């Protein structure tokens, strides 16, 4: 699996040759630096570690400073490991959007937008209890029953309830790469991508 780290820029749309309106996300991807090459002999598994995003020297812990210095690069903000990178890479190499081709399908991993404390209707898609009329009140967004009574005398683990929503790692599958602009390190992906604008995402193929 090859991949690259990037930043979500925002969404827009354009018209294709047949006049269809294509929704798409603009992603700034790379250039990433290879900061470590893990090998079977040394680490027990083969992988490539790449880093992206500038970071101030004074905000970097000394241990990380040394790690990036070894790769001959400035400190970076986001570090991700890829197993089975298709291209042969060495320490200090750069990974750019050249690894992709237009029309190809990719997966995108990001952290979804945080929604705060939410009820079961929004969080789990419950339908609420009953209707608005017939004298009912305040049950419209209620969760309903949590289970049976004297047996089992408890609420089962994993019962879906209200709570924190969003901020999860989400993977969006099979997004088509519509356009690659190598001069600006930009990718234009079809559809939406998890996370807020400016958040880090990894694009995998």
């Amino acid at each position, binding site marked *: 699996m090859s991949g690259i780290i990037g930043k979500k*820029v*925002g*969404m*827009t*749309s*354009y*018209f294709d040759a047949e*006049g269809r*309106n294509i929704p798409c996300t*603009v992603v*700034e991807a790379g250039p990433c630096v290879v900061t470590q090459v893990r090998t079977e002999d040394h680490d027990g598994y083969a992988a490539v570690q790449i880093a992206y995003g500038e970071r101030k020297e004074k905000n970097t812990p000394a241990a990380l400073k040394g790690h990036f210095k070894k790769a001959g690069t400035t400190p970076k903000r986001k570090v991700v490991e890829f197993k089975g990178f298709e291209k042969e890479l060495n320490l200090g190499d750069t990974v750019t959007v050249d690894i992709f081709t237009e029309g190809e399908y990719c997966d995108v991993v990001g952290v979804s937008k945080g929604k705060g404390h939410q009820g079961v209707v929004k969080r789990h898609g419950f339908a609420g209890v009953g209707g608005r009329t017939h004298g009912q009140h305040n049950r419209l967004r209620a969760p309903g029953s949590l289970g049976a009574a004297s047996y089992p005398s408890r609420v089962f683990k994993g019962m879906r309830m209200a709570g924190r929503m969003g901020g999860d790692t989400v993977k969006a599958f099979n997004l088509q790469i519509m*356009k690659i*602009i190598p001069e*600006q390190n*930009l990718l*234009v992906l079809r559809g939406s991508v998890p996370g807020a604008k400016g958040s880090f995402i990894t694009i995998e193929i």
Partner: protein
Amino acid sequence: MDLVKFVEESLVEKREIPEFKAGDTVTVVYKIKEGNKEREQLFQGVVLQRKGHENTATFTVRKISNGVGVERIFPTNSPKISRIEVNKRGVVRRARIFYLRKFSGKKARIEEKRV
């Protein structure tokens, strides 16, 4: 530089369309593909609103067809629009005239702008 704008400028072809606003009566000539044949369809009505900006902008047109109100939203930059004709300039006080939906017949008239 705003990167979204950069992408929009490289992907979307900006179209020259006549200037119009809410309250105006326009005719949108729209290309329709039927099988292999391509023909043009007219949609004439009152502009309810113009929405969005630049490359992703749209506008809504409302007409009364066989006594039923029909509204259609067109992307301003769509290549399927072959042309837009402005038939009448209307005098309205707001940018979005959704109040027009409540009216029919004589009440739904819009005063024409005197040039």
